[in-house]
């Protein structure tokens, strides 16, 4: 892991913690972006943590780019000493895999896909060495995920699976991006899963759909009244496979204003996790039983 500092034009400092993805790189980028926030540097307008990097946007009329760079670099040592532990929450997200809406969409854009003969799930299962789509789906939802970045468009979470690197699922993006993706599609690209918060363009493979909205600019949905964006970096997600009947019930409950996501407060410690992944994940998922 070697930190690389660079300018993004005259209004941004970009810091790449590592060129490959790992939870170590994520924690360091989060610690460093928190350190920048805590330092309250005059002129900073945006601090954006990402998977293994982060970006600071500033007003060069208030602080010159070289000075901003010096200030950010100074914070690296402090961030390295920060403990890799956070108080966070685990959220259960219901997913209807192989749903009719993403299926209709993936058929419409088949000519942009690596394998036009099957579905996105057929392709993903095959290239990851799974005997069946069902086995692949089980691998997708059996262990929890970590929200390592929120962005692209409004409130879209990128999720990284909490398993050993050799167990990570990997799929390429579409050869050419689609112009349409259903709202709340559960997608996959590289080693990341995501939830499309709004309808629109996209290049990730499509596995299913969740009935649970995660972005509401009108702030009318019961659990989005305080803020329109549901996810924040560091959230932990457990996918829960559901059937069509339950999907329809949840959609109705959301509309009626009675739906409450299952959420539990948890602590995540990277060293504990690295020492015992199965045990840590089991504890995280057990917390949902009391939710």
């Amino acid at each position, binding site marked *: 892991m070697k930190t690389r500092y660079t*300018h993004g034009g005259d209004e941004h400092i970009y810091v790449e913690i590592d060129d*490959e993805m*790992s939870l170590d790189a994520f924690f360091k980028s989060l610690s460093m972006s928190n350190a920048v926030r805590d330092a309250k540097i005059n002129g900073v307008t945006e*601090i954006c943590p990402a998977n293994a*990097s982060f970006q600071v946007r500033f007003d060069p009329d208030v602080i010159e780019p070289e000075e901003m760079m010096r200030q950010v670099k100074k914070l690296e040592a402090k961030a390295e000493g920060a403990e890799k532990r956070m108080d966070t929450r685990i959220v259960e997200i219901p997913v209807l895999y192989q749903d009719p809406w993403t299926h209709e969409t993936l058929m419409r854009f088949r000519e942009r896909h690596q394998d036009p003969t099957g579905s996105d799930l057929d392709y993903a299962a095959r290239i990851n060495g799974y005997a069946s789509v069902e086995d692949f789906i089980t691998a997708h939802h059996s262990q929890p995920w970590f929200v390592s970045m929120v962005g692209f468009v*409004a409130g879209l979470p990128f999720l990284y699976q909490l398993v050993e690197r050799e167990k990570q699922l*990997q799929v390429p*993006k579409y050869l050419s991006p689609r112009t349409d993706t259903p709202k709340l599609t559960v997608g996959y690209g590289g080693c*990341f899963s995501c939830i499309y918060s709004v309808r629109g363009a996209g290049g990730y493979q499509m596995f299913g759909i969740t009935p649970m909205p995660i972005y509401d600019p009108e702030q009318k949905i019961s659990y989005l009244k305080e803020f329109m964006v549901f996810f924040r970096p560091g959230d932990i997600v457990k996918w829960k496979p559901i059937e069509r009947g339950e999907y329809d019930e949840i959609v109705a409950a959301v509309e009626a204003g009675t739906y409450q996501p299952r959420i539990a407060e948890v602590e995540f410690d990277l060293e504990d996790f690295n020492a015992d992944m199965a045990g840590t994940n089991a504890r995280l998922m057990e917390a949902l039983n009391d939710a």
Partner: protein
Amino acid sequence: MTLRIINHGLSTSIQDLGRPGYFHLGIPLGGAMDRFSLRVANMLVGNPEDAACFEVVFLGPKIEFTKTAIVAVTGAELPVRVDGEPRDNWSSFEVKAGQVLSFDFLKSGARAYIAIGGGIDTPPALGSRSTYPIGALGGVDGRNIEAGDEIPVGTSTSATAGLNVKEEFRRLPESPARLRVLPGLYWHRITEASGNSFFEDEWTVAPEADRMGYRFKGGRPLEFVDREQPFGAGADPSNIVDGCYSYGSIQVPGGKEPIVLHRDAVSGGGYFTLGAIISADMDFIGQLQPHATVKFEKVDLAGASLARAERKQMLARIRKELG
């Protein structure tokens, strides 16, 4: 008072100077693509410089005024009429109650800004009236204006007709447009030869050019430095582990067609970026029509700071003259 939208033109949106502070959640700054022109339009009608205006793309709207107001149109050369009578661009003029503001065909540039004394007074979302249709924020119920809309406008006590901005301050890009670039970000991913060809070649604006980003074509494809792709980045040599994008950053998917992210930028993604357009030249991009020719020019940080200072100075001079 309200404005009645008789015809919305091609794509007319309400914009101010944007909503900073939410990019980490994927909600972009937004706001006028040509911030200089929006500021000057507001100065002409006595508004705070960050008041909300209409941003008009290519084709002007038709708007009926229900009360008398002072108006100014800046940015693209889009000839203005009030009840059919011509008015000057980059000037303040009166539109009386019952009169209709309309436009002739675009002569040059791409985006005009209509400021109205008192400012557009639609409800702000996250601190701004700027329209961000992808996230359904700002504007009119999260969308661009449409025929039949009634747009509220604040009241003004400081607007006067008859002010105008000198020719030398009416900024529009030259042809070919010169867009200055600070190399950086993932510049190291491309070969030295490609680094040179990027700046040597002439590029043209592709039809995919909007508030999110401008795509360019016509230059030689870029070649990448060989490497084993890092874990999580994806197989294509133009892929990186998804990171944040800078405003103005230049991504080149597959090494083929550069895309410059603009005010409604996606906040991150998995393509390498070779640097970013300097802040002083971002406004010019908003004034480029499809098929316009562009040369990218390499600058260093000192050059970027100087260009920014020049632009700031120009705004200060206009402020003083209109003050």
